[in-house]
C-alpha cells in the first residue's frame, strides 16, 4: 500500500489548486469577452451560428470526451484490461450514426433544440413538452456521472477525504460552471470546450508517448508488463471476459451495454445542440468529421494509458486509492512525472468535468426555456426573446443546483457506468423519434409521444429495478434489494421497445401532414431557408 500513500501525499495540493485556478481564470476572461456579443436568443442558444466546422468539431470532442472517457475508460482498462477497451469502441462507432443519419439533416430542420425538429410537422405543444422532458432526464443522468467523478477526483488530488469537504468542492465546481453558462451562453461554453479539448487531448498525447517510450514504443511489451504486474492470472487482462464474461447474464448485460453505447450518442441532447452553432449543414458535417478523428485518436491514447497504469501503478494500488478505478490516469501521471504532471493532469481532468457539466447545463436550460416556457407555457406568443433568455439563465441556476446536490449524493459511483445509463436513456427516448421524424413520412405526433415517453418510462423503470440500483454490493443502495430486472443496462429491452412503440403509435393515428413533410424533407436535404439567417 506504500505507493498509494505516495500517490495521495505526493500530490502537491497548492500546485493542483494553482494550475486549476489558472484554467478557471483564463476561461472566465474568455467567457466574459464572449458574453459581450450575447444579445439575442440565437446568441445565447446557438452562438449566433457563428462557429466554423473545425472549431465546432473540437468543441464537440470537448463536450463528448467527458471524465468518463478519460478517467473511467483508462481505469477500466487498467483493472479489467480488454473489456475496458470495448467501451471506447462503442463510443466511437456511434459517431457514424451521427455523421450519416443525423447531423446535417438536424442542422437544416431545427433552430436550437430537438423540440424544434419534432415540432416542424407535428403538434407543437405535446411534442415539445416530450422532447424537453427527455432532454432534461438524459442531461440529469449525464450530470450525475460527471459530478460523481468530481468527488472522487477531489479526494485524490486535494487530499480531502471527508464527505463534507468533498461536497464543498463539488459545490464550488458547480458554481463556477453556472457562471460560465449564464454569462457566456453558448458562445462562452463553446470556447471553454475548445480550450478543454486542446488541453485534454494534448495532455493524453504527452502521457501516451511517455508511457510508450518506457516500453520502447512496443505495445505488446507494454501489455506484457501489465500482465506481469498482476502476476498469476494476469493473462486475463489481454483477453475479453474479465469484466463481463463471468456468467451468461453478465454476457447478456454486455450486449445491452454495447447497444446503448452505439445508439446513444446520436440522441444525446448536448451533442445535438452543438450542430446548431455552425452556419450550414456542410459545416456541421465538417465538425462531425473532425470530432470523429479527435475522439478516435484520443481513445487510442486511453488504450495505452490504461495498460500503462496497469503496468506502472498496478491494479491493486488503483483500486485501493480514493476514487478507485477512476484514479488510474492521475496515478499514472504521478508515476511518470511526479507532482507536476499529476497537478497538470488533475487540472485537466477537473476542467473536463467543468466543461462537460457546462455543456449539459446550457442544453437543459435551453430546452426548458425554448420548448417549455416559450412554446408550451407562452404558446409561442412570447415575442419577448429577452424573457426567454432570462428564463434560460434562471433554469441554468436551478439545474446547476440540482447537479451539485446529485453530485454530492452520487459521489463515489463508477462514472463510466453512470454515463452508460445516460446513453441508454438517450438511445431509448430520443434516437427512435429523431430517425423516424427525419426519414419516415408516416410518422406523427402520437408516434413521437409513445416513443419518447414509452422509451423513457421503460428505461427508467428497468434502471430503478436493476441490480445497478439495489441488491448487490456494487449497487447504489447495497443494503436493500428490490431488483427484479436482471441486467444492469436496460438498452437491450428499452431501445427496441421505443422503436416498436413509435411505429405502432404512428400507425394507429390518422394524423398526417404531407405538405409539411414535403417542406421538411426538402429543407433537411438542401438546407433551403435555414442557412441564410447568418451571412458570413
Amino acid at each position, binding site marked *: 500500500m506504500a505507493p498509494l500513500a505516495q500517490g495521495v501525499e505526493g500530490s502537491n495540493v497548492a500546485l493542483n489548486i494553482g494550475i486549476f485556478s489558472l484554467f478557471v481564470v483564463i476561461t472566465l476572461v474568455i467567457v466574459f469577452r464572449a458574453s459581450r456579443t450575447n444579445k439575442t436568443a440565437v446568441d445565447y442558444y446557438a452562438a449566433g451560428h457563428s462557429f466554423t466546422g473545425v472549431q465546432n468539431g473540437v468543441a464537440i470532442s470537448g463536450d463528448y470526451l467527458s471524465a468518463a472517457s478519460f478517467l473511467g475508460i483508462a481505469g477500466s482498462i487498467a483493472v479489467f484490461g480488454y473489456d475496458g477497451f*470495448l467501451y471506447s*469502441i462503442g463510443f466511437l462507432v456511434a*459517431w457514424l450514426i451521427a*455523421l*450519416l443519419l443525423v447531423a446535417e439533416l438536424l442542422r437544416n430542420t431545427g433552430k436550437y433544440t430537438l423540440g424544434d425538429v419534432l415540432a416542424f410537422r407535428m403538434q407543437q405543444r405535446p411534442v415539445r413538452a416530450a422532447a424537453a422532458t427527455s432532454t432534461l432526464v438524459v442531461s440529469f443522468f449525464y450530470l450525475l456521472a460527471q459530478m460523481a467523478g468530481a468527488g472522487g477526483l477531489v479526494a485524490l488530488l486535494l487530499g480531502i477525504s471527508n464527505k463534507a469537504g468533498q461536497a464543498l468542492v463539488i459545490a464550488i465546481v458547480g458554481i463556477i460552471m453556472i457562471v460560465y453558462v449564464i454569462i457566456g451562453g453558448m458562445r462562452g461554453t463553446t470556447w471553454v470546450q475548445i480550450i478543454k479539448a486542446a488541453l485534454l487531448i494534448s495532455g493524453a498525447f504527452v502521457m501516451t508517448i511517455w508511457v510508450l517510450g518506457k516500453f520502447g514504443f512496443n505495445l505488446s511489451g507494454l*501489455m506484457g508488463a501489465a500482465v506481469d504486474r498482476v502476476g498469476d492470472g494476469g493473462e486475463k487482462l489481454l483477453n475479453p471476459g474479465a469484466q463481463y*464474461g463471468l456468467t451468461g447474464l453478465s454476457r447478456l448485460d454486455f450486449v445491452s451495454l454495447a447497444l446503448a453505447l452505439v445508439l446513444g450518442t446520436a440522441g444525446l441532447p448536448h451533442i445535438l445542440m452543438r450542430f446548431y452553432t455552425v452556419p450550414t449543414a456542410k459545416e456541421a458535417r465538417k465538425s462531425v468529421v473532425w470530432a470523429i478523428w479527435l475522439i*478516435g485518436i484520443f481513445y487510442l491514447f486511453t488504450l495505452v494509458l490504461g495498460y500503462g497504469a496497469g503496468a506502472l501503478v498496478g491494479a491493486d494500488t488503483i483500486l485501493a486509492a480514493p476514487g478507485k478505478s477512476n484514479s488510474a490516469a492521475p496515478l499514472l501521471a504521478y508515476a511518470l512525472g511526479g507532482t507536476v504532471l499529476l497537478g497538470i493532469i488533475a487540472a485537466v481532468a477537473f476542467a473536463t468535468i467543468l466543461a462537460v457539466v457546462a455543456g449539459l447545463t446550457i442544453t437543459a436550460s435551453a430546452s426548458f426555456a425554448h420548448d417549455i416556457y416559450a412554446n408550451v407555457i407562452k404558446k409561442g406568443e412570447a415575442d419577448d426573446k429577452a424573457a426567454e433568455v432570462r428564463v434560460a439563465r434562471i433554469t441554468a441556476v436551478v439545474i446547476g443546483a440540482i447537479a451539485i446536490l446529485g453530485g454530492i449524493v452520487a459521489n463515489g459511483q463508477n462514472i463510466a457506468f453512470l454515463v452508460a445509463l445516460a446513453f441508454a436513456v438517450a438511445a431509448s427516448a430520443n434516437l427512435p423519434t429523431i430517425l423516424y421524424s427525419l426519414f419516415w413520412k408516416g410518422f406523427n405526433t402520437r408516434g413521437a409521444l409513445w416513443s419518447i415517453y414509452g422509451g423513457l418510462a421503460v428505461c427508467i423503470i428497468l434502471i430503478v429495478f436493476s441490480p445497478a440500483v439495489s441488491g448487490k454490493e456494487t449497487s447504489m443502495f447495497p443494503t436493500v434489494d428490490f431488483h427484479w430486472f436482471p441486467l444492469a443496462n436496460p438498452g437491450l429491452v428499452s431501445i427496441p421497445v421505443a422503436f416498436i412503440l413509435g411505429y405502432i403509435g404512428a400507425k394507429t393515428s390518422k394524423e398526417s401532414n404531407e405538405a409539411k413533410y414535403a417542406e421538411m424533407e*426538402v429543407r433537411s436535404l438542401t438546407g433551403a*431557408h435555414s442557412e441564410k439567417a447568418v451571412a458570413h
Partner: protein
Amino acid sequence: MSTTDQGPPSPDWETIQQSAEFTQLRRRLRNFVFPMTVAFLTWYLLYVLLSDYAHEFMSTKVFGNINIGLLFGLLQFVSTFVITSLYVRHANKSLDPVSEKIRDDIEGGK
C-alpha cells in the same frame, strides 16, 4: 448563403419534393447511408458478440501479446475512419452539387 430577405410567398415544397432532381438527391443520399449503416452496425455487433461469446477465438495470439480481439478492436477504429472519409467524398462529389442547385432554385426564385 448570401441571399437576402425571405420573400412572403412560400415555395411549392410538394412540387420540389416530387421533382426529378430532388428524387435523385434523396436516392443518392439513402443509397449510400442506409447500406453503410447496416454494414457498420453488423460489423460492430459481430465484434461485440465475438468478444462476448467467443473468448477463445478472440484470445488467440497473433504476435507477442497482441491477440485477434485487440486487432479486431483496432480494425473498428480503422473502419470508422474509412467510412467517415468515404462519406465525405460521396457528399462532396454526389450530394452537395445537387442540393446546392435545388437550394439556389428555391431561394433565388422569389
